[in-house]
């Protein structure tokens, strides 16, 4: 309830500032008003090109993020279980991790034959490390008494891995997925602004070049909504995967 009120106040202040073209160091002269944005949104909703932009971005997220999960989760689980693997892979991770995914853009364009692939690659990179690090963390904090209990009940190596290490790490893995999804969007939007054709990040940047100021705000809001929706989807998935209530 209070949330709705604060949102309403936010929009009202926005309306006031833009309608009056307020200037106090920060300039609201060219900033579109909520009304204008709404009008553009209705227009965009009827324009299939806008839908294409959204679809392109979502597809890139889906590919990049899914790929990152499929590689990082098993890798993290195995690294957590086998020390040798950890000692081989960890140094590489530590060196490449501090490089933001956006810094990879020029390199990615050189590496991959198509633009599309390099953008997916950037998205992949952005979400890869949060997922890997959290999976590792999850493996490191598995309660050893549960492992011993399983062995006492006759569980062999593979069963212990499947029945204890994996479910015990799931809450931390989902933390990684949530963080990874956030970083994936950050990386995607940046990559689309720099090198894209299509995509909601490209749409937002292009609006600026084409002096379509209302579309800038529309793009921003769309990005926010998509980010919110995808982190909600991850939470939902977490609830389904962990019915015992670890994902509160």
């Amino acid at each position, binding site marked *: 309830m209070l949330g709705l009120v604060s949102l309403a106040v936010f929009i009202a202040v926005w309306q006031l500032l833009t309608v009056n073209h307020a200037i106090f160091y920060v300039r609201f002269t060219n900033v579109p008003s909520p009304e204008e944005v709404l009008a553009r949104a209705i227009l965009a909703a009827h324009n299939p090109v806008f839908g294409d932009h959204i679809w392109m971005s979502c597809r890139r997220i889906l590919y990049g993020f899914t790929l990152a999960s499929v590689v990082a989760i098993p890798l993290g689980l195995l690294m957590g279980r086998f020390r040798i693997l950890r000692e081989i892979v960890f140094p590489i991770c530590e060196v490449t991790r501090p490089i933001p995914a956006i810094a990879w853009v020029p390199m990615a364009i050189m590496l991959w034959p198509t633009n599309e692939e390099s953008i997916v690659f950037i998205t992949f990179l952005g979400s890869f490390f949060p997922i890997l690090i959290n999976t590792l963390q999850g493996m490191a904090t598995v309660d050893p008494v549960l492992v*011993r*209990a399983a062995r006492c*009940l006759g569980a062999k190596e593979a069963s212990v891995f499947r029945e204890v290490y994996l479910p015990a790490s799931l809450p931390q893995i989902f933390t990684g997925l949530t963080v990874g999804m956030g970083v994936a969007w950050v990386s995607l939007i940046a990559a689309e602004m720099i090198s894209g054709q299509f995509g909601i990040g490209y749409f937002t940047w292009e609006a600026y070049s084409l002096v379509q100021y209302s579309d800038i705000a529309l793009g921003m809001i769309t990005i926010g909504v998509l980010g919110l929706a995808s982190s909600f989807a991850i939470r939902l998935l977490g609830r389904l995967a962990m019915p*015992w209530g670890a994902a509160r």
Partner: protein
Amino acid sequence: MAGTARGLIEVQDFCLRYETMEGAVEAVSDVSLNVQPGEFVSIVGPSGCGKSTLLNALAGFLTPSGGTVTVDGEAISGPSADRGMIFQQYSLFPWKTVRENVEFGLKMSGVSRSERERRARTLLGLAGLTQFENHYPDRLSGGMKQRVGIVRALATGPRILLLDEPFGALDAQTRLIMQQILTNMWQRLKISVLFVTHDIDEAIFLSDRIYVMTARPGTIKSEIVVPLPRPREPSMTLSSEFLGLRRGLMSLIREESIRAMGGEVSLDSLKGLAINLEGQDLATVL
């Protein structure tokens, strides 16, 4: 193996050294003990004397540095569902319901789903846990968790049950109930039990025999037979026989606890205090 396999535990001159960065630590030295098939035996001793170490060797997590540890004449080569273990920390799998926890051992040995379910339901019924079968462990009280833990360990039909201070974290009331449940299950299933505790009353109330261990490096200080008849009733804890056993055990353990603390405190200086404490203790019991 079947037929003759009845859960005879034999420990001969068992030694265990932990290799640490500061060098080898002798945790247990020259322990010999046995548990006869169907017997209930307790180990008491000051903390750090190697009780858990001994149990872990029996479970198959540690290899003896010296001596032999056998069950029914066979050396232990690793953990097995033949030897159930209950830990002091709650060890139910949080991601499995009560029934799935109980089924775990059977699942590992390849029992079919329907058969697993049937056996788990029967056992849960015996332990009065039927209404909780679909609960996740985080919804259970501490006593209930340990009860499920015991049922889970018994589900695979082990020959022996090892318990490492299983009721240490429970309140006095719950503890009494758990002792009763454990006694019932033990009598019904006729398996051998080796029970580690720091609670003297608990040891006397439950056991046929009690081993007292010395401070590190742990060895067996003495062996006490508990001649109290069965079934044991809570009122027996007030009998002169019980109190006599208790007094004897307490003085044995007090000596060791002082030794475990480094022995700087002389026994004489503590005597007055100890007698006072004992009086107080008895008053609360009575």
